[in-house]
């Protein structure tokens, strides 16, 4: 159940980041170096693939946690749960346990099915491309030899040609290959240099590897439409940034020449190459416009870019720094360090639970538990992060309220259950824990 939690959380905060990047893209596309957007997309990607994020007071989730609005939303969630799962309200604890687990199993299977379908789709595309490319022939003429010599990187680059491609493209992470169409005119040096340079930039920046990671993220979060939107936009931005780099390398005055080359290749569209980067296609019109708008980035642009990235990272990519518990009146008690809360154990007010929680929902659940509203707690328990849940369970046990644990017992971790059982033995309340036995 825990991984579902992580998945939803990562997906949610990543979706927020993606929305922010989309907004930034619309506002600043032609005013900032395109690399900035790639950095922003990487932030979203990290959020999608890495379950850990560092807490920050600046995080929007810290600010949100202290918001009455969120508490109201939580009540909406509990009402929704009530509608959907009336079966769970049956008093039999066994049924409660089974129903909760079944839903989780179903969700897990649904996710797995979606993931496998997406992954299979990409793998099939890859195989189709592989079959088309494997019969390519090497290109060896003085021009290519010279070009390869002057464009040395650690990996060995091959230049090949094939009748199956209509537009130049590059692929391969460990052994990059530039694949040219059969009719490539090696005499046309000015045209060729732009084409090769473009592919070279893709190779040098490991774009194929980056695309692979984005594909993985899209497969894992297949149910999130924003992630697919991100996938489409990332591919476009990789091309745009590549164009920008090529123009920079050749000098700004080469803009027109480069754009003309792109236009002349426009007629020939290549097929779908998920891990490769092609020269034309890929909304060539957008690219040509962007190329003509390239200008030297001013210092202010760079500063703006830096501030933008920092803001997005610190506000949206961090998790909630746990503030103190919110009181009924909605007053905010903001504590800077979690340790301070532990020290205040003795002066706990009735409606707070000690300890810091990993998620906003955890804090809300703690508040609900503190109020003794265990039925409601039982309804949102499947959404809770494992650590938060264990903390709450321990707290309830500490209060001596073993009976109330039954509402959340099926989701509590085994170690915590054993700890609670020990504690109960000491308190001489083992009888009350009989319902716990099947879960230990």
């Amino acid at each position, binding site marked *: 159940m825990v991984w579902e939690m992580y998945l939803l959380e990562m997906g949610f905060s990543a979706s927020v980041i993606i929305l922010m990047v989309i907004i930034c893209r619309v506002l600043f596309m032609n005013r900032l170096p395109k690399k900035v957007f790639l950095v922003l997309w990487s932030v979203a990607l990290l959020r999608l693939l890495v379950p850990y994020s560092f807490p920050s007071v600046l995080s929007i989730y810290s600010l949100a946690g202290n918001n009455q609005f969120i508490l109201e939303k939580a009540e909406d969630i509990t009402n929704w749960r009530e509608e959907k799962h009336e079966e769970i309200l049956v008093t039999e604890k066994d049924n409660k346990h089974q129903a909760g687990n079944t839903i989780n199993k179903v969700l897990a299977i649904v996710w797995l099915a979606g993931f496998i379908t997406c992954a299979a789709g990409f793998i099939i595309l890859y195989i189709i491309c592989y079959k088309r490319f*494997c*019969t390519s*022939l090497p290109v060896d003429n003085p021009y290519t030899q010279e070009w390869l010599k002057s464009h040395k990187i650690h990996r060995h680059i*091959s230049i090949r040609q094939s*009748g199956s491609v209509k537009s130049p493209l590059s692929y391969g992470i460990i052994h990059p290959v530039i694949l040219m169409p059969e009719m490539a005119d090696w005499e046309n040096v000015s045209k060729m240099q732009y084409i090769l340079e473009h592919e070279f930039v893709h190779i040098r920046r490991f774009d194929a590897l980056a695309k692979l990671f984005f594909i993985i993220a899209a497969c894992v979060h297949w149910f999130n439409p924003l992630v697919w939107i991100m996938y489409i936009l990332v591919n476009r931005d990789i091309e745009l940034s590549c164009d920008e780099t090529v123009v920079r390398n050749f000098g700004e005055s080469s803009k027109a020449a480069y754009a003309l080359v792109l236009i002349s290749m426009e007629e020939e569209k290549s097929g779908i190459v998920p891990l490769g980067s092609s020269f034309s296609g890929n909304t060539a019109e957008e690219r040509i416009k962007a190329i003509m708008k390239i200008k030297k980035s001013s210092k202010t642009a760079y500063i703006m870019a830096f501030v933008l990235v920092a803001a997005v990272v610190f506000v949206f990519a961090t998790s909630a720094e746990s503030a103190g518990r919110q009181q009924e009146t909605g007053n905010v008690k903001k504590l800077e360090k979690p340790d301070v809360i532990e020290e205040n154990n003795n002066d706990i007010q009735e409606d707070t639970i000690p300890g810091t929680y990993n998620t906003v929902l955890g804090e809300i659940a703690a508040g609900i538990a503190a109020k003794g509203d265990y039925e409601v707690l039982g309804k949102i328990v499947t959404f809770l992060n494992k650590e938060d849940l264990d903390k709450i369970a321990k707290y309830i046990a500490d209060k001596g309220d073993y009976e109330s644990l039954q509402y959340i017992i099926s989701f509590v971790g085994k170690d915590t259950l054993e700890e609670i059982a020990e504690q109960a033995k000491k308190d001489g309340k083992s009888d009350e824990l009989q319902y716990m036995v099947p879960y230990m």
Partner: protein
Amino acid sequence: MMDVKLFDSELKVMDVLWREGDVTAKHISDVLKEQVGWNMNTTYTLIKRCIKKGAIERSEPKFMCHALIPKEEVQEAETNELINKIYDGSADKLFTALLGRKKLSAEQIENLKKIVGEFK
């Protein structure tokens, strides 16, 4: 008579047979691995395609390959196609184009003159 068109990649396979005569598929695969970097699967797939097109005949043991189409036939077919498609069906135009190319070496011009002489 060649009814089907051979792709560049398939021509490369045929080339080995034209140069070396009948050889095993394994040998073709080794040669091409050396020449163009194809792995064994790729070469075998191409050989099978050629067999399907009637360009290669397979005999056992050892998957021996024999070229059913001579090189000259392919050359003629390709040239005719070139003339028809690009030079408006006129061999003269192709000839003129070849002569007009500044990159012809003296040796090539000599050879062309010889060929013209043979046709007289």
